[in-house]
């Protein structure tokens, strides 16, 4: 099991380590700065931290020594807009070709040394082949006419928050887009298709609710051992695909609510998945102030609400889409909250131990 955990927060990047039976904060980088995303690349040990300065924009830093020292590297940059072009989203909002936010950062396959994928707001996917030394916008997706129909979900402008690299084929990517459904390429990004049939958008008028390109999957994850099996925590429900996103079906009865942002799937068992529910779209707090994790072990036919070790009174922790992670073994999980709490479980969620309760708002939790 992984004994090291990275927490990207509103006020720095924290490293937690297991010390005997307890977890403790072992270090912090970029203290005071907004760190929305972190990646620990298991292929070469490099760490990547994304900083988002309110005034100075989005920056990417890289460490070769587990966070002891950092170097700033190139951030993805959108190409110059053609002269005279003005782009607007379906609601009429101006879409500037400029990096607003890094919403996903994922490594390529083991044999794709140095390849990184970066999903962003306002909806561009970037690829690096040299560990972030340079980035290239994937124009085939950016120039796709349907991309211009995407609109903001959770942010003013649309964005790519989930990049699932098929474990056997680095050219096969599955993207989660808010709001733009699920997009797939099987040829390394030359062609793209929206694959969200079966998803339902309760926030749209009836005739548009099943339109794939307006779906808001808050997070999409893929089972490593069974990559045709995907789970999505959607804006208004939980959805699952067992055919590589060709079709999705809604999973009902998630206790205590099917609203939330985060989802994790067991790396070996596609039927086992975890969620961190909130009350609802219009009330983004735990149901009755009690933090729980919902777990299914049978593909969504039944769920357990796991709460042992989690606060059950006046707790208003919300977990964002990158705030839940599972380690390589599928035994250990961790999740962090908007109110600076983080919990770790060594037994697939049966029991939880608090790692910290007064940390800054946590955006991304990742085992290293």
């Amino acid at each position, binding site marked *: 099991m992984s004994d090291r955990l990275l927490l990207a927060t509103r006020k720095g990047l924290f490293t937690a380590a297991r010390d005997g039976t307890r977890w403790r904060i072992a270090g912090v980088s970029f203290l005071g700065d907004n760190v929305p995303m972190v990646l620990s690349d298991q292929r070469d040990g490099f760490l990547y931290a994304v900083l988002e300065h309110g005034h*100075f924009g989005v920056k990417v830093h890289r460490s070769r020594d587990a966070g002891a020292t950092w170097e700033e590297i190139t*951030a993805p940059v959108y190409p*110059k807009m053609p002269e005279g072009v003005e782009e607007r989203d379906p609601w009429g909002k101006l879409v500037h070709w400029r990096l607003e936010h890094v919403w996903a950062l994922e490594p390529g396959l083991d044999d794709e040394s140095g390849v990184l994928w970066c999903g962003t707001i306002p909806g561009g996917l970037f690829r690096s082949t040299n560990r972030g030394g340079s980035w290239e916008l994937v124009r085939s997706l950016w120039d796709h006419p349907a991309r211009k129909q995407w609109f903001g979900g959770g942010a003013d402008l649309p964005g790519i928050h989930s990049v699932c690299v098929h474990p056997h084929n680095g050219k096969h990517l599955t993207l989660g887009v808010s709001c733009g459904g699920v997009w797939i390429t099987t040829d390394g990004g030359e062609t793209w298709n929206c694959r969200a049939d079966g998803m339902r958008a309760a926030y749209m008028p009836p005739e548009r609710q099943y339109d794939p390109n307006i779906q808001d999957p808050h997070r999409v994850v893929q089972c490593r051992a069974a990559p045709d099996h995907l789970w999505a925590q959607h804006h208004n429900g939980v959805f699952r695909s067992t055919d590589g996103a060709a079709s999705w079906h809604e999973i009902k009865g998630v206790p205590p609510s099917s609203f939330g942002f985060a989802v994790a799937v067991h790396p070996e068992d596609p039927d086992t998945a975890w969620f961190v529910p909130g009350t609802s779209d219009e009330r983004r707090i735990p149901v009755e102030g009690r933090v729980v994790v919902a777990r299914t072990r049978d593909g969504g036919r039944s769920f357990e609400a796991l709460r042992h070790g989690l606060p059950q009174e006046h707790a208003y922790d919300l977990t964002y889409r990158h705030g839940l992670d599972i380690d390589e073994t599928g035994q250990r999980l961790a999740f962090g909250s908007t109110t600076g709490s983080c919990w770790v479980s060594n037994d697939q969620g049966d029991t939880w131990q608090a790692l910290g309760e007064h940390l800054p708002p946590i955006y991304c939790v990742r085992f290293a």
Partner: protein
Amino acid sequence: MARVIFTRNLQRHIACLPCEVRGTTVRTVLDAVFAHNEAARGYVLDDQDALRKHMLVFINGEQIHDRIALSDPVTDDAEVYVMQALSGG
């Protein structure tokens, strides 16, 4: 030569010492600065080379008008201040 001074908040992230450069507009002045300090460009300008949303530039105490093309004129003895806007948090 115009004198260019950067906000202290920027110094926390990247070296950006006061300097004197030649230029007749905000664009040419900043280009002259970034020619010797390319890493600073992305902290002040966005992907389209416009002034970042929450940055401000003053010439002799007057805020510039053209945040996109940066065409405001700069005289030879001007002081150009590159500051952060409080709107950025």
